[in-house]
């Protein structure tokens, strides 16, 4: 069956002066939208930074959140977004034939640069996802430290898998499992929308579950913000340890002053840290091996690998009805040997990237364990800058204005 032009019927010679209708089509000015999007991003980031550092006010950040949900969320349909841009950047890293557009690149790098300068001001209200969760948030039930610590590994695992799937050009996982995009577009995959609604309901009672326990971009910003040059402060004056700010933080980023309350002697503590340090490389090797082991299964999500499975199954025992994939395979004049080669290439890429991803996952788990066991005395209420999203909520609770 040919899908190309065939000339079964000759072109008619019209005698009545018939004119062919013209195509009607339009190509939107993508460039213009890119410029508008990047400008809005910069303006909103600027407002949040100004509000959190100069004005120390929550109101402008709230306004930014509303604008962001309205513009980036509902109006632009959640695309392009910084979270998803990780995938484009990663793919362009390993595959120069892939087109990385300037706007996507800027959406990736600008919030990171801001995070390096001022902390996670992007998350405060410029990110439509963070803004949406913040707008519905009423109460902050605190999640216990070990549970929160364990859950905070998930963004890194998600990031690792995202990189594997993007770099092998298999899937954009972030786009597929984007929980809020269905809400912004008022349609889409029911399961994913349901998940988004569950997350939103959760964010009523505990701040930003997506940001804290899922967002892979948040993981990157977390890392960068720890080293940020300027940092938000709960109060510009001295902390008087009144504990008033402690519960105001939606992401549980405020650490209370801490004496040595654990039953552990210093020697025991040191022994524990040393044990974790020894465990760290072992953990990395173990995770790398495990990921390498499951790599061929992960590869089955790749269309080339799946096609190979379908075609071999078909050739082993031809059925009456051909899968459309198999039909397309034959009608494009491809053959099994060539498919085999390209499948093997994909699988070997999967093996390589999965091993790297395993190393990353092991490293993150090990470092989290270490971080949780390193205890350092604090005399004041301090902000954990990796977690703080610069939302400015705590400022108002502090009597030391």
């Amino acid at each position, binding site marked *: 069956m040919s899908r190309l032009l065939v000339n079964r019927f000759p*072109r008619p010679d019209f005698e009545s002066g018939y004119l062919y209708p013209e195509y009607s089509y339009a190509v939107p000015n993508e460039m213009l939208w890119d410029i508008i999007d990047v400008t809005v991003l910069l303006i909103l980031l600027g407002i949040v930074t100004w509000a959190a550092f100069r004005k120390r006010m929550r109101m402008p950040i709230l306004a930014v959140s509303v604008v962001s949900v309205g513009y980036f969320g509902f109006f632009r349909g959640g695309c392009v977004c910084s979270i998803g841009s990780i995938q484009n950047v990663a793919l362009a890293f390993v595959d120069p034939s892939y087109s990385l*557009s300037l706007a996507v690149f800027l959406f990736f790098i600008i919030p990171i640069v801001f995070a390096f300068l001022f902390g996670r001001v992007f998350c405060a209200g410029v990110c439509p996802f963070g803004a949406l969760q913040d707008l519905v948030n009423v109460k902050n039930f605190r999640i216990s430290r070990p549970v929160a610590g364990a859950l905070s590994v998930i963004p890194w695992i998600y990031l690792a898998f995202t990189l594997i799937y993007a770099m092998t050009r298999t899937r954009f996982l972030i786009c597929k499992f984007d929980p809020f995009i269905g809400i912004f577009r008022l349609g889409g995959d029911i399961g994913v929308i349901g998940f988004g609604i569950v997350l939103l309901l959760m964010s009523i009672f505990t701040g930003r579950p997506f940001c804290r326990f899922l967002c892979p971009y948040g993981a990157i910003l977390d890392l960068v913000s720890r080293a940020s040059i300027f940092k938000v402060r709960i109060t510009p004056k001295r902390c008087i340890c009144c504990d008033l700010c402690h519960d105001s933080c939606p992401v549980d980023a405020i650490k209370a002053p801490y004496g040595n309350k654990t039953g552990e002697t210093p020697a025991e503590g040191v022994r524990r840290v040393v044990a974790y340090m020894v465990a760290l490389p072992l953990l990395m090797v173990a995770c790398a091996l495990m990921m390498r082991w499951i790599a061929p299964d992960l590869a089955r999500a790749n269309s080339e690998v799946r096609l190979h499975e379908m075609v071999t199954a078909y050739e082993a025992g031809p059925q009456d009805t051909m899968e459309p994939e198999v039909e397309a395979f034959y009608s494009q004049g491809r053959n099994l040997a060539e498919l085999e080669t390209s499948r093997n290439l994909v699988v070997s890429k999967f093996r390589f990237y999965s091993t790297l991803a395993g190393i990353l996952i092991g490293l993150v788990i090990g470092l989290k364990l270490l971080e949780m066991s390193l205890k350092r005395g604090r005399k004041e209420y301090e902000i954990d800058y990796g977690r703080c999203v610069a939302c400015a909520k705590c400022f108002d609770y502090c009597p030391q204005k």
Partner: protein
Amino acid sequence: MSDNGNPIKRREFFRRLGKVLAGGGIVAVGARSAANVKSEGKADLYWQIDHEKCIQCGRCQTSCVMPVSAVRCMHANKVCGYCDLCGGYYRTNAKELNTAAENMLCPTGAIARKFVEEPYFEYTIDEALCNGCGKCVKGCSSFGNGSLFLQIRQELCLGCNECSIAKVCPSGAIHRVSYEDAYKFKDQA
């Protein structure tokens, strides 16, 4: 390091080190990715269907994230045979060749048929009604000149970061094209 014994100084050292590492990392990643950025006109940013690969499987209608798919049928009139018996218009098993709904291939009645002159009929697609199911395209490719073809309408398409049809397209027909190629017409190849 001489200040190893002093915890304050040591902490300050690690803080500096962190800043340098983070800053250096950002510059390195930024520079490397910036080198991969393609200029706007040349970058392949628009999702489009390669009609040489498409087998009209019907997934274009159902897999787009839009409630009604951004894929619509277009007609290359200049290569159409203007047949009375159009393979894209009538069902193959139509009993009588009249415009009764049960004889129509198009489920939404998006194809308009107009008499031009003996024996020619003009077929045009009402894109507001078309849902991109590709039935007519299949019919025309099998029995006619193949002048009907599916296109992603760029003004309807959201330009998803990953087109959800592309991921299920059995023939790998959906790919990204540049601004100049945002539409591919059958009569202008």
